[in-house]
């Protein structure tokens, strides 16, 4: 959320501006109710959000093995991870590859599914349920399931490949195929994107299509000049959310590969986890976490900035 939007938000709730210098009895009653209502939330906010954020800033500038006293070392953690840590760059590489393949493929797949679901099909509700189902079940169970699917000897993946007379790869046991395996698996959970796109599709006014039909446009032309532009704000939103989510991949790697083989699936959050909770380099792990946050923040900003060129907002005047 941008700061200007935040200000507009506050301004929109204008009753706050009419605050009087001296409180009447009624206003005091309201203020007391306000403090009581906000206090559990405020306590949670302070303990679980604000203090940890400030602490994380400080911890990232220290050398700290949890049992010892933190020692202030300035920016040395950041210096180390940028110039002196091959594993950090490996984890960046692995995570970025995952995001680059996962996000566009899952967006295309979920858009295609949403377009299908938007047709007059028999059993549409049943299909929507089936398509969405994989997105709700626990990731740990999903991971266990896919370990078994990717099993080189007995798994169903290689059994299918064997039908064509080819011996399939070792999948999650191979440093070359582990990352592609996790990407393939992530495409199984396209239901969330489909639901978001479907809601967007249903918001496109039918009269646009009717007008285009009268003008003699074919299906493809209608898709390019009505559906895509009208859907573009939803696409942008889904892409940004998906990028943010994909950068945080952890559970699948933790369960299925443990970051291996040969660090082929050492995603950034897993690397943070290792540093903090296996090697107890708390300071270094905090620095890594901030770097991950900055990377995601910069990519999101670039996406939002570039979107001005391709996202069409209905109701905003074009041209000029």
């Amino acid at each position, binding site marked *: 959320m941008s700061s200007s939007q935040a200000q507009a938000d506050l301004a929109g709730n204008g009753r*706050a501006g009419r605050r009087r210098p001296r409180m009447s009895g009624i206003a005091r009653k309201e203020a007391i109710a306000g403090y009581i209502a906000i206090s559990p939330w405020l306590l949670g906010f302070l303990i679980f959000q604000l203090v940890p954020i400030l602490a994380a800033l400080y911890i990232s500038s220290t050398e700290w093995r949890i049992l010892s006293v933190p020692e202030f070392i300035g920016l040395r953690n950041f210096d180390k991870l940028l110039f002196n840590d091959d594993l950090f760059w490996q984890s960046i590489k692995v995570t970025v590859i995952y995001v680059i393949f996962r996000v566009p493929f899952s967006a295309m797949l979920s858009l295609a599914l949403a377009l299908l679901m938007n047709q007059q099909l028999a059993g549409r509700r049943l299909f929507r349920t*089936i398509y969405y189902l994989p997105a709700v079940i626990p990731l740990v169970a999903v991971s266990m399931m896919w370990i*078994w699917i990717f099993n080189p000897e007995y798994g169903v993946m290689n*059994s299918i490949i064997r039908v064509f007379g080819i011996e399939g790869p070792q999948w999650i046991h191979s440093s070359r195929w582990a990352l592609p395996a996790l990407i393939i698996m992530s495409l199984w959970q396209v239901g969330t994107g489909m639901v*978001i796109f479907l809601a967007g599709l249903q918001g496109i006014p039918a009269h646009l299509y009717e007008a285009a039909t009268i003008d003699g446009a074919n299906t493809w032309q209608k898709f390019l000049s009505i559906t895509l532009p009208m859907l573009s704000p939803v696409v942008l939103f889904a892409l940004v959310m998906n990028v943010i989510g994909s950068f945080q991949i952890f559970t699948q790697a933790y369960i299925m590969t443990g970051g291996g083989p040969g660090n082929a699936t050492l995603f950034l959050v897993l690397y*943070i986890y290792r540093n903090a909770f296996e090697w107890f380099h708390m300071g270094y792990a905090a620095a890594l976490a901030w770097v991950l946050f900055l990377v995601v923040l910069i990519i999101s900003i670039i996406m939002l900035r570039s979107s001005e060129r391709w996202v069409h907002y209905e109701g905003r005047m074009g041209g000029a």
Partner: protein
Amino acid sequence: MNLRRREAISLQLITALGAAALLFPFLWMISASLQTLQEVEAFPPIWIPAEPQWSNYVDAILNYNIGRALINSAVITTVSVVGQLIVCSLGAYAFSRLRFPGRDTIFLLFLATMMIPHYVTIIPLYTMVWSAGLIDTYTALIFPGLFSPFGTFLLRQFFNQIPISLDEATLIDGGNHWHIYLFVIMPLSRAGLGALGIFSFLGIWNTLFWPVLVINSKELFTLPLALAMAQGQFVTLIHVQMAGSVIACIPVIVIFLMLQKQFISSIALSGMKQ
């Protein structure tokens, strides 16, 4: 006309094939959960076990402590979701409706920190829980989940859409601010509360990261943690693991099928996942 019909049939076919492809892993898991170890490792793969091995489920419950984990997960998720709805709705109510000095400062501070993700705060959170001696307790699992920045924001947006004239009418009728909260705001925000409830249910039920950090003893394992530990065991009994996974999926699937409409609309509403 003929062309259109063919098009419709092929679309229907594609949809059905896609659905079959998505269901395939599920069926594969269920089938494996009912086989013997020999059947699981047979080639070509066996789809229908000669005799369904329901004992795999018993083994999963006994060996991997799935029964206890199911209870733990149910307790933790219920308390967290209900608690989160109360804490967040009270906070959102204060932000949306009640005027008090300092409110807008707090809200700005809140907006400024809302974007900071979980993986940044988790290191200090862990050290806090650790130094408070709360490792291996329900408290460690429940308390951090009670507070949700996203949830508060979502509910505040909802509350802002409710006309203030309703508040005023309640006050004129002699009600106080708690009556407004209980009898005006909450009943009119069912969709928002439902959406938040579903998000936090899925998030808390499915999460592994936090339980891995703060729980050590078997008696307190949540379902994802119990499954993860089963996977980490030296002897891998695939059929029993699959039975455990099926058990972990059942509660979520049942709730999803019951509340399907709310699930779909809550995703479409805020488009946010976890």
